[in-house]
């Protein structure tokens, strides 16, 4: 069924900057500057879709969720929502520290709009998901922050709405539980056909979970499309970079010997892409023009991750050109980065052209293109069946061999 469950037409929200409670004691009148947190945003979301909402801070993401979950009213426009909405804008809203875990489950459930019989029905499931059975009758003020978040998410996850609106709530809690929550949300959408609206700064999470995404910029809807397309556009804007860099003739970096033309990241079929699955190879091509013959020239690529760690460098050491001087002409050097080697995340790629001996750097350009690697949890990556936090700057898939070498029980 392709029922429209959320339809928004020209939703707008205006705030007044510097609006404070008026004082009757004749305070100097403040200038009330209007500011549109959301401006003419229209979209339609169909049942069963998982839609990510991305954008910079202040782009209007939270405002939109607040309007859709009826916490605040729009200044203009109209929206129609079909079905029960469960919104989770903050984990543990309304938890009372003095009350026990058991009592808070009922309280929080009611706050989120559940009836008591519904909570009763799901009580055991909630407790099991939160893994807090021994502490059920302990006041939550004695809980560790991890337990607190687990309990709060567990209640919300069992809310059973037709439409689930989730803000950046998963920023809290440990990574393992974050992934568990993401898994649960994905499951809710896939198996039960529920609609999920999900705001996050975590591009990885959005790309893994969502089928579509809305890109908000300065309160306006910039793009609403398939998640890959939207993330590409977002990254381009965020970094000012994309997966392809083509220089204009007069601005190309270079010297009198060599000059760059373009650099790009592409897939096996030569298609430029910004989002790669962890289990497919990434090809980086550098196209450059040699203007003066007689030099040994080698292309270089630097890989940096989001934390600015130089993950690795690659030098063109192919036998064909290793010790051979290049003639005048245009060259294309392509390197294949194998599947199951890069870790998940964003990579910033820099390029250089150098002569190895005597060492001389002709061109060195940092942050030329970006590439984004995601794991769709298809279980053919180094993750296997593990969905928790996976550290490491690279994530190679290595061969393992395990065999039973002694079947006796050595403890006895």
């Amino acid at each position: 069924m392709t029922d429209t469950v959320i339809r928004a037409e020209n939703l707008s929200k205006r705030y007044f900057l510097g609006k404070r409670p008026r004082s009757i004691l004749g305070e100097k009148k403040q200038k009330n500057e209007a500011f549109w947190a959301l401006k003419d945003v229209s979209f339609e979301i169909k049942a069963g879709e998982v839609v990510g909402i991305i954008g910079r801070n202040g782009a209007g993401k939270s405002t939109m969720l607040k309007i859709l979950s009826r916490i605040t009213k729009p200044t203009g426009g109209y929206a129609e929502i079909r079905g029960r909405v469960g919104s989770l804008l903050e984990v543990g809203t309304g938890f009372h520290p003095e009350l026990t875990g058991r009592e808070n489950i009922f309280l929080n459930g009611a706050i989120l709009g559940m009836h008591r019989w519904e909570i009763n029905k799901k009580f055991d499931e909630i407790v099991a998901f939160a893994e807090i059975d021994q502490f059920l009758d302990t006041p939550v003020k004695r809980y560790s922050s991890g337990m607190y978040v687990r309990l709060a998410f567990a209640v919300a996850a069992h809310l059973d709405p037709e439409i689930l609106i989730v803000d950046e709530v998963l920023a809290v809690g440990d990574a393992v539980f974050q992934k568990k929550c993401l898994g649960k949300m994905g499951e809710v959408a896939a198996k039960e056909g529920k609609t999920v609206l999900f705001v996050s700064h975590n591009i990885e999470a959005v790309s893994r979970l969502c089928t579509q995404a809305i890109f908000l910029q300065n309160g306006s809807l910039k793009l609403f499309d398939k998640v890959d397309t939207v993330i590409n556009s977002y990254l381009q804007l965020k970094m000012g970079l994309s997966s392809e860099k083509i220089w204009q003739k007069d601005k190309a970096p270079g010297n009198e010997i060599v000059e760059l033309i373009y650099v790009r990241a592409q897939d096996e079929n030569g298609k430029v892409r910004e989002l790669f699955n962890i289990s497919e190879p990434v090809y980086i091509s550098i196209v450059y023009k040699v203007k003066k013959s007689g030099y040994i020239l080698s292309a270089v690529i630097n890989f940096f991750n989001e934390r600015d760690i130089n993950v690795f460098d690659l030098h063109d050491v192919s036998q064909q050109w290793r010790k051979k001087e290049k003639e005048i002409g245009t060259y294309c050097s392509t390197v294949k980065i194998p599947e199951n080697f890069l870790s998940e995340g964003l990579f910033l790629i820099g390029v250089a052209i150098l002569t190895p001996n005597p060492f001389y750097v002709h061109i060195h350009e940092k942050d030329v293109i970006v590439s984004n690697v995601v794991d769709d949890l298809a279980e053919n990556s180094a993750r296997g069946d593990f969905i928790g936090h996976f550290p490491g700057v690279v994530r190679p898939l290595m061969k393992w061999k395990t065999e039973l070498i002694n079947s006796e029980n050595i403890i006895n």
Partner: protein
Amino acid sequence: MKNLREFNIHHKRKNITIIQPQKGLIALDFQEIWAYRDLLYLLVWRDIKSRYRQMALGPLWIVLQPFLTIVIFTVIFGNFAKIPSDGSAYPVFAYTAFLPWQLFATATAKSSDSLVNNLPLISKVYFPRLVIPIAAVFVSLVDFLASFGILLMMMLFYRSYPTLAVLTLPLYLLLAVATSMGVGLWFASLSVKFRDVSIAVTYIIQLWFYATPVIYPSSMVPEVWRGLFLLNPMAQVVEGFRWALLGTGRSPDGITLASIVLVLILLVSGAFYFRQTEGSIVDSI
């Protein structure tokens, strides 16, 4: 199968939420409040339960507080100041009035502060906001019922038995609740814009206390002022309580009716004003 589909469609139609800018007067929507009755119940229960956790005497405080106040009143106003008590024993005279007063005072203060106190909740979850001040009033009502037990024991002790007029007691109770609700709704809505409201409320309640015949009988008020004095709905409640329980005080009359009308105006306007402010609560934090 077809029936199920039809049911689904029908069911879904019922669940349509329309979101649009606030225009004109907003309906009170009692149906929605009823749908959230579990939340109302749990908010009341949360308040009561959490208040007495980690207290040695626990819920005993509900009855101990008014009881101690009455001891003080009796000593100061009954014994030292020798204020007349319309023929009843002073402790019973004062306590009968102090109970509904206490209900009004705490309910008003609590509901006035309720929106500001619950801002974290309001800014994160949607529910009919009216639930919040209503819950605040209910909490005070629970306290009232507990301390009402003390009054019954006191009346037994002083051998003061009510007449059939006691049947009107729930109506007076309702008037007290309606008054505090009306005042509370106005103050709660105002407190969103002006945070000094909660300070003002404390003083207003204090003044109101002296304008209400709790520690003195209304017969002490000069004749010229009595009409105006009795327009105060709490004066009506307090005197009504005495009339219903002790046979002293004042029986309901024309002024009672006028003051009920006043409360109704206050309550209805308060509720509509509250609904009007409701939509912008989160924006004016």
